[in-house]
């Protein structure tokens, strides 16, 4: 097999366009919304109120116990049969956010629990409410601990957004598929897509190191 460099070059435009207008914005929006959701779910799970923690438990269990592809299809292809029709883009973002919400909730819960109890007590003794202690004392310390596992979640998410091609979102992989179908150069186009995913994830891993260094400035080395 000789590489068709001309095809690589000419397909780069549409594939990168798919990354910039599809993959990256879907991943960013889903991760942002998913983290907010995850924080709420983590706090519910830690709550002493059995109803709240029960709801959080069930939610996490459902998300982790079912395939992401199935979640995506239920929202895009399933909901219309009960009268709820959501277009591809919002469907993808809703599905990915719900998914991140379930996984990251456990990361955040563990990170909050990793902060020593004495930190809550110090917050209490200087007059803080539990909410103040959480926001000003506990979460900043939990954030440091949760950067590596949350980076994992984010990197997985970037790759998982390729599933959105199956609900007609024009993103990186769907663009590659279309060029491949047209040119019949499947190996070439799918490897090209793989390399671009890899480069995006390398950049994210770099971002992770920078963030970790920044947050590590107050711990002994």
């Amino acid at each position, binding site marked *: 097999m000789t590489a068709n460099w001309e095809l690589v070059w000419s397909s780069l435009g549409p594939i990168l366009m798919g990354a910039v207008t599809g993959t990256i914005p879907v991943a960013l929006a889903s991760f942002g919304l998913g983290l907010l959701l995850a924080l709420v779910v983590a706090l519910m799970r830690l709550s002493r109120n059995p109803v709240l923690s029960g709801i959080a438990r069930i939610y996490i269990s459902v998300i982790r116990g079912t395939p992401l592809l199935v979640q995506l299809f239920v929202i895009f292809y399933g909901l219309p049969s009960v009268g709820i029709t959501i277009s591809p883009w919002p469907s993808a973002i809703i599905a990915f956010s719900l998914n991140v919400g379930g996984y990251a909730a456990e990361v955040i819960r563990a990170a909050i629990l990793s902060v*020593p109890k*004495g*930190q809550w*007590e*110090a917050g*209490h*003794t*200087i*007059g*803080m409410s539990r909410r*103040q202690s959480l926001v*000003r*004392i506990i979460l*900043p*310390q939990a954030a*440091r601990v949760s950067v590596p596992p949350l980076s994992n979640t984010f990197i997985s998410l970037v790759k998982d957004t390729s599933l959105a091609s199956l609900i007609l979102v024009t993103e990186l992989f769907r663009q590659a598929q279309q060029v491949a179908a047209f040119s019949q150069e499947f190996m070439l186009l799918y490897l090209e897509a793989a390399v671009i995913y890899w480069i995006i994830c390398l950049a994210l891993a770099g971002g992770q190191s920078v963030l970790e260094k920044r947050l590590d*400035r*107050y*711990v*002994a080395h």
Partner: protein
Amino acid sequence: MSPTESDLPGTAPLLTVRGLRKAFGRHEVLKSIDIDVRRGEVVTLIGPSGSGKTTVLRCLNGLEVPDAGVVEFGGELTVDFSAQASKKQLSALRDRSAMVFQHYNLFPHKTALENIIEGPVQVQKRPKAEAVQDARELLARVGLADKENSYPFELSGGQQQRVGIVRALALRPQLLLFDEPTSALDPELVGEVLTVIKELADEGWTMVVVTHELAFAREVANEVIFMDGGVVVERGHPDTVLRDPREERTRQFVDRLLNPF
């Protein structure tokens, strides 16, 4: 920032505790404790581990809620734990004292200065400039003027505990609570922390100190309370309790601390 001059030692009671009880599950940690602390006075709590002395402090600062008992503060606040104490009463009681912890519990993500001004600025809503100025004066007094921008991990244990003390002072509490403030320190660092506490006592701060440092108790305390098994076994002037105790249990405990081998 020292207590006002009218707060002379031995005048009016600042804190009166009656019948304080606390159980964790079926384990009774405090079985009816009475304590009186007058303004400007230093009361030290001594006793074997598990005797309940730390729990007493934690109850006074609201880190534990007692099951029963009455705590009266400065003649203007009475919290009856035998009835249902309101949230408002609990935080009023908490705000009158400040705790210094055995393991310092400084906020590791904040500098020494940020640790100190957190309460005054975020909770008490005092102007930041004023809080910073206060904090700097207090840091200078404990010999840490050059450490305001250091993170806790950059400080020795003794320095961290001095920041912990300043953090408590900056809240301008009426009562300082020390929970074994030197127990986590390397032996050579104990002195610098005890010196600071002694200076505060000399300035007239009212304090309750849980400690194993008998020499400190003898020199600084107005009253020593020996606790064991959740009850007060003996109390009185340090010379009596530490040199010539009435109770056999007190004598054994003091002997063990003075002659560990």
